[in-house]
């Protein structure tokens, strides 16, 4: 069955699934992948027409160490475990990761005074490799830093990662290992039952013995469908500015702000695609669809970015976007099993969800067992190797052997990001093909560069019509 995006759902609720995971973001996809290790009938469903189309696609793309988590919390533990698991998984599957390390830069005395406390906190979280840097040491490490940097705390291990490839790798591996992925499939009603819950979706009914809520921003809304009201998700908007690749040489580490009473500040970070990212803002909103940027937000970011890295503002802006974090008013995840309902809620996964995803998935498997799920024996997952989108790893356009075997990998279509015709075709024939230009960009980087389609838009459209036939 694999991936469906349209038409009535197969079977109309029968035969039912052992587990249905609702929400195909990075967390839901990780859970589906973990379940795929077992001889279970599993479905992963999402309202959007692609995986990772909500918070998972618009974040700061950092693989955190968890050095600054609140010690003793579930989040602290899962981030620490998740960092280790995802780091290894990324190497295995070709997800681009760069372990640049982070510098928490202090710009005033108060922030400088906070650095030793942050080092102690890191130690309580199991990170003993942090180091205080003096102003001259810092200037050597980051020669383009703005005036007034007093000191920094170095946190080795903080990395940048490709969030799109991560979600796609989990979902691809899940589907190849037997999970059904139903997209454009919003769940509108849940009729709890025994032995099966019935999920009424826009495309028909799904039966589910066990249910996982990985709805991110909408986790509270889905809880409500099952009569639960344990927490409220307040979307916290983060606007981000991505600068041109010409800015990449300006910064070597992930530059983190020192949290203080005057707010959290913004970070400046390289991306695995070779750009530099600035942000995020933190705005508490009511609207869970307010992923637009604002004039004030962008102006504020540029002002702060100009103080951190003045030369940044001389470069062109390649992209601006905003994502929404799922804040719940509690400094921890809200992961809970409801055994009577054979239901697990995975809520309040804030900005660390990408890092913790694999650990969250293992944790949820345990909770499902508490809810009566017998996963059965474990078996190996289908292997997966993802196309590389990272600038620090070999790209097809420089691969003589690949081009010799298939000339399409020598035909650059998106010139700014150097995406070849071969990569476009491969995306459309992959396990989970893109549903549109945004999905294609997240799979290949095509149209994601400085021209934003000025040169390549028409050609990409033609290729999408040629290769995308039958997938949409």
């Amino acid at each position: 069955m694999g991936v469906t995006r349209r038409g009535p759902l197969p079977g109309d609720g029968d035969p039912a699934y052992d587990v249905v995971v609702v929400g195909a973001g990075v967390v839901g996809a990780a859970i589906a992948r973990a379940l795929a290790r077992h001889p279970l009938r599993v479905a992963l469903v999402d309202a959007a027409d692609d995986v990772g189309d909500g918070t998972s696609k618009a974040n700061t793309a950092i693989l955190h160490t968890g050095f600054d988590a609140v010690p003793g919390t579930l989040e602290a533990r899962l981030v620490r475990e998740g960092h280790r698991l995802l780091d290894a998984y990324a190497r295995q599957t070709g997800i681009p990761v760069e372990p640049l390390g982070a510098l928490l830069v202090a710009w005033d005395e108060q922030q400088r005074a906070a650095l030793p406390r942050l080092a102690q906190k890191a130690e309580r979280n199991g990170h003993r490799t942090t180091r205080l840097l003096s102003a001259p040491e810092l200037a050597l490490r980051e020669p383009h830093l703005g005036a007034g940097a007093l000191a920094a705390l170095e946190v080795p291990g903080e990395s940048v990662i490709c969030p799109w490839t991560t979600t796609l790798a989990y979902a691809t591996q899940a589907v190849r290992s037997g999970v059904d992925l139903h997209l454009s499939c919003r769940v509108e009603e849940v009729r709890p039952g025994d032995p099966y819950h019935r999920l009424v979706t826009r495309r028909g009914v799904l039966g589910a013995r066990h249910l996982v809520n990985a709805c991110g921003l909408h986790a509270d809304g889905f809880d409500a469908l099952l009569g639960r009201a344990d927490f409220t998700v307040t979307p916290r908007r983060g606007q981000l500015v991505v600068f041109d690749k010409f800015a990449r040489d300006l910064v070597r580490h992930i530059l983190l702000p020192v949290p203080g009473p005057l707010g959290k500040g913004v970070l400046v970070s390289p991306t695995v695609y070779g750009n530099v990212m600035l942000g995020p803002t933190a705005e508490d909103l009511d609207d869970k669809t307010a992923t637009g940027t604002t004039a004030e937000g962008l102006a504020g970011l540029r002002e702060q970015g100009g103080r951190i890295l003045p030369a940044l503002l001389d470069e062109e802006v390649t992209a601006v976007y905003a994502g929404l974090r799922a804040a719940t008013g509690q400094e921890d995840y809200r992961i809970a099993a409801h055994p009577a309902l054979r239901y697990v809620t995975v809520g309040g996964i804030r900005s660390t969800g990408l890092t913790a995803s694999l650990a969250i998935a293992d944790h949820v498997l345990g909770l499902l067992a508490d809810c009566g799920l017998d996963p059965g024996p474990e078996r190996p997952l289908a292997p997966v190797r993802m196309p590389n989108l990272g600038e620090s790893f070999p790209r097809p356009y420089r691969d003589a052997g690949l081009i010799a075997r298939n000339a399409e990998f020598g035909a650059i279509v998106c010139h700014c990001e150097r995406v070849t015709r071969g990569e476009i075709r491969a995306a459309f024939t992959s396990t989970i093909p893109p549903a549109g230009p945004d999905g294609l960009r997240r799979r290949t980087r095509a149209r994601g560069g400085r021209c934003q389609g000025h040169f390549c838009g028409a050609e990409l459209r033609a290729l999408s019509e040629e290769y995308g036939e039958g997938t949409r």
Partner: protein
Amino acid sequence: MTRTVDVLVVGAGPAGLAAAAGLAAAGAGRVEVLERETDAGGVPRHCVRPGFGSDALGRPLDGPAYARRAVRAASRAGATVRTGVSATGWAAPLTLDVTAPTGLERIRARAVVLATGARERPRSARLVPGSRPAGVLTTGELQRTVARFGARAGLAGRRAVVVGGDPVARHAVRTLREAGAVVAAVVCERPGTATALGVGGAFATPVPVLSGTVVTELTGRGRLTGVAVRAGDGRTAVLRCDTVVFTGDWIPDHELVRLLGVPLAPGTRGPVTDGDFRTAEPGVFAVGNLLHGGEPARRAAAEGRAVVGAVLARLAGRPWPAGGVPVATEGPLRWVTPGLLGPAPVPGTSEAVSLPPPVPAPPVPLLVRPERRLVRPVLTVRQGDVLLGRERLAATLVPWRSVRLGPWWTDGVDGAGGPVVVAAEE
């Protein structure tokens, strides 16, 4: 394996093709043009409208015909024009790494002419806030799409807003209409007297022109639903549309220049060159809209022709001049090219030589772009206290057209003196 040619031209648009044609005809040896797109000819390929001069019989040429002629002229002169070939970076001085369906190559040249053109700034680079829906594009993408698919209905939406006040905005309106879209309005930041669009856009079927108005937000999920605007008097409105075309606001496509590390001119963001189109890197020249963006094909082609002499001198072993006098603007002028007035090169064979002062810099024409509409301005060119030229122009200058100052304006520049400043006042 490195292959060697005499001249490598990067970019087969009007400037690159004119340079290649001139060089091949002048016996420069093996002249090779690299074009990353599947067809040579550059931007005119997509401009199906008159305004590209005329053929030998006096019949007007449209963009595609102009492009075909330029490609033919270069090929007939003996240049090799290769398409679908991307120069991706510098392997060594004067040596480019190249990707093509036929494989990877490393090409070394005795001289490199960069003619990579310019692009319109997209929405993101203009920092326009709002959502990120489909239906947001530049004139370049619009014209390429229509050229690629034919003017089929719905190709560019049903109802469009065009942003910008340069002539390219008029071309966008025309292309949208050909593709069956209704143009709801043209929105331009400059006041009405400073746009290339008269009342109704000067179209037989008028289009509302909202001058002195800025785009404040894009709305819509999935597809664009509207463009929020604010007029100079503070009034706001939302223009309902499913397509918005951002026009003009050119920036040189200068990746190879940046990778080379040569200085950029602040006004144009193109490489600084001297009057003979030499960059700071010995052997590397730059011509066309890579230098300034937004100039018409004939100007780009003229620069391509004008570089020939200096390239031939380079091939003949003449030294690469170092130093030179910077040229800057003052007052309501956006940019000037060239950015450097070089000392006259002296015979010899060494790579870069500093010349003993004082030396007169050879007079060259200047290209100057005003920032706003200037009615009969007084232009001056000075070097320190020395007034080199001063003249009240008879014409009104407009921000979408450059004015060429003849070589006499720079006659008498001291090649060892301070910066030359071009200024304008009304």
